[in-house]
């Protein structure tokens, strides 16, 4: 789960990590009154959406005329912001962050993440801030500093000094970064974060270090112990169909093809999409029903897949281990009957209780296409989507 910049900065404040003075506004007039309360002579108006690259998309504006804050906020709120990460449709801006502008001497990059290689929380830093860090890593890997944290003893001072040294900080700033890093590590650990990114971290003209941006993502599996963070979830930033699916414990991702997929297990679900593509079709979605799928869950899966008007056939591929084919079959029957499905449905069942499952389907008298194997099912689904017979 991701949160907005202004929410991440509020979390930073609780950990005494320096951020610019500022507040979120939902309307243009709110934006103006916030600017009036903030010290300084220049203000930043930042669109709050979850996607990155907001500066490039025109979602970050600076002004030294306070009246302009209202205008800029008015332009941004309600607009569709397109950035390199949003896709062509962009995202609707519902709120803006109003901040005091800073006098920047240098920009750095700083992040904490769970590194798959070391399997530890790792700090990544660079003196090349404000840029695409993947590009920096590819072009100039020696400008990237990495430090893995031993969870038994936590982040140590000497590691912070190494990081500070690696990005060229001197004197008092080494000490300042050490304190900041240790507080960020606590924030990351306490909140079960997956990613904490500050890009840029700024050194100001007066020497202070401050987080100009803040991005945080959290481990969905740990949200049960963080009700305060769960409350920060913004459903406007998520695909309503994916929210609907997750409410039924289904993992769904919309794609742009015409062969709908209902599969158990993430690996098999990906392989099913790949097989559809191999036989000349285009998958319409990823959908994993998970383990212990009840008839209701299967019926919901059909509903969600078929809400996509592009879907011309549905391939159901179940290899039951912890699941039971008889329950799955009951779900299929229930869905086809109650939802009056006339889209061709291709069913491939295997594994636990497969004979009972096939018997339930055969006895239902419903219209479906049976397939025995993965390739057979994929071929038939692709053909059905094209209005042909395999």
């Amino acid at each position, binding site marked *: 789960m991701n949160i907005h910049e202004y929410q991440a900065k509020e979390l930073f404040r609780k950990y005494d990590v320096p951020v610019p003075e500022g507040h979120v506004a939902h309307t243009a007039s709110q934006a103006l009154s916030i600017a009036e309360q903030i010290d300084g002579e220049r203000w930043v108006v930042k669109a709050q959406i979850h996607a990155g690259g907001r500066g490039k998309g025109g979602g970050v504006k600076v002004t030294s005329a306070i009246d302009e804050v209202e205008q800029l906020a008015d332009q941004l709120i309600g607009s569709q912001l397109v950035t390199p990460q949003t896709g062509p449709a962009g995202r609707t801006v519902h709120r803006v962050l109003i901040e005091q502008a800073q006098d920047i001497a240098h920009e750095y990059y700083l992040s904490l993440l769970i590194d798959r290689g070391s399997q530890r*929380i790792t700090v990544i830093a660079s003196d090349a801030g404000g840029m695409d860090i993947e590009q920096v890593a590819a072009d100039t890997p020696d400008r990237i500093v990495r430090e893995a944290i031993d969870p038994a003893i936590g982040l140590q001072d000497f590691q912070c000094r190494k990081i500070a040294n690696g990005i060229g900080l001197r004197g008092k700033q080494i000490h300042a970064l050490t304190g900041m890093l240790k507080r960020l590590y606590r924030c990351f650990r306490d909140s079960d974060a*997956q990613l904490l990114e500050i890009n840029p971290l700024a050194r100001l003209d007066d020497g202070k270090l401050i987080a100009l941006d803040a991005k945080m993502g959290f481990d969905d599996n740990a949200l049960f112990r963080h009700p305060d963070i769960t409350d920060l979830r913004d459903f406007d930033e998520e695909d309503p169909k994916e929210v609907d699916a997750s409410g039924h414990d289904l993992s769904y991702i919309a794609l742009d093809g015409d062969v709908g997929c209902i599969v158990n297990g993430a690996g*098999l679900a990906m392989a099913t999409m790949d097989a559809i593509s191999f036989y000349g079709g285009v998958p319409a979605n990823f959908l994993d029903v998970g383990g212990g799928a009840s008839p209701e869950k299967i019926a919901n899966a059909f509903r969600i897949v078929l809400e996509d008007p592009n879907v011309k056939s549905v391939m159901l591929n179940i290899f039951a281990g912890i699941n039971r084919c008889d329950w799955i079959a009951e779900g299929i029957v229930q869905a086809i009957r109650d939802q009056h499905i006339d889209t061709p449905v291709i069913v491939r069942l295997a594994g636990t209780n497969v004979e009972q499952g096939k018997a339930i389907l055969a006895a239902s008298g419903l219209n479906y296409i049976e397939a025995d194997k993965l390739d057979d099912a994929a071929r038939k689904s692709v053909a059905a989507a094209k209005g042909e017979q395999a």
Partner: protein
Amino acid sequence: MSIIVDKDSRVIFQGFTGQHASFHAEEAMHMGTQVVGGVTPGKGGQEHLGLPVFDTVDAAVREAGANVSVLFVPPPFSGDAILEAIDAGIEVIVVITDGVPTQDMVRVKRYQVGHDTLIVGPNTAGVITPNQCKAGIMPSHIYQPGPIGVVSRSGTLNYEAVEQMNELGLGQTTSISIGGDPVNGCDFLTILKKFDADPATEAVLMIGEIGGQQEVEAARWAREHMNKPLAAFIAGATAPPGRRMGHAGAIISGADDTAQAKMEALEKLGVSVVRNAAEIGKTLKGLIE
């Protein structure tokens, strides 16, 4: 021969008295697995499925000689339950639980250092040595003894591959799913080394997916050290970048992570890469002959 578990393995279930654990304990026994009891804190001294229930893993090790644990404990408590099993000296811990917090696994991995424990999972279908020991949730009837070692991330894709192998009369020495989480107990490389050391394993199938570099690292080692044919399938060729595909670890976060890039890297390392998921069995048959 086999790796990880065999007919002498003494298996317990953590979270024993729950519905899923009970079902799969019975299935395991049905295949001939030596199940010696289970652990449910607070229910020690009772009997379940005709077997003793213990309050702690330590008691199950001391009193029933357990050395393998299959863990069905719910996510909020599973990190602690894995630590308990490591502490008790369990040799193989199979974590079925889906949804273990990642940072709990980071701590588990740290605690594992210095202990001689193999952790499989979390979010795994487990490990099976056909007709000897099933420590997992896979449909055991599709697995048959034979010369192929199978290691996958996904459970259900493992079943798919094994069914294709069955049709061609190819069985398995041992089959294992390592799970789909970004921080997991053991990686492909650890398992490849075990298959390499097992004289009964004649060829190895590795089923990977998008995300991370584990498959490539394992293949790099295999090119230098393994004298057995290695075949691989990588799921997720049609997955869009930046989206988490069900498994917490299955996300394309860089150019090296895509299925295409991984398949090409594996081919360069001499691995027989299967492009069509429906031809996994056929490819292995070709490698053996």
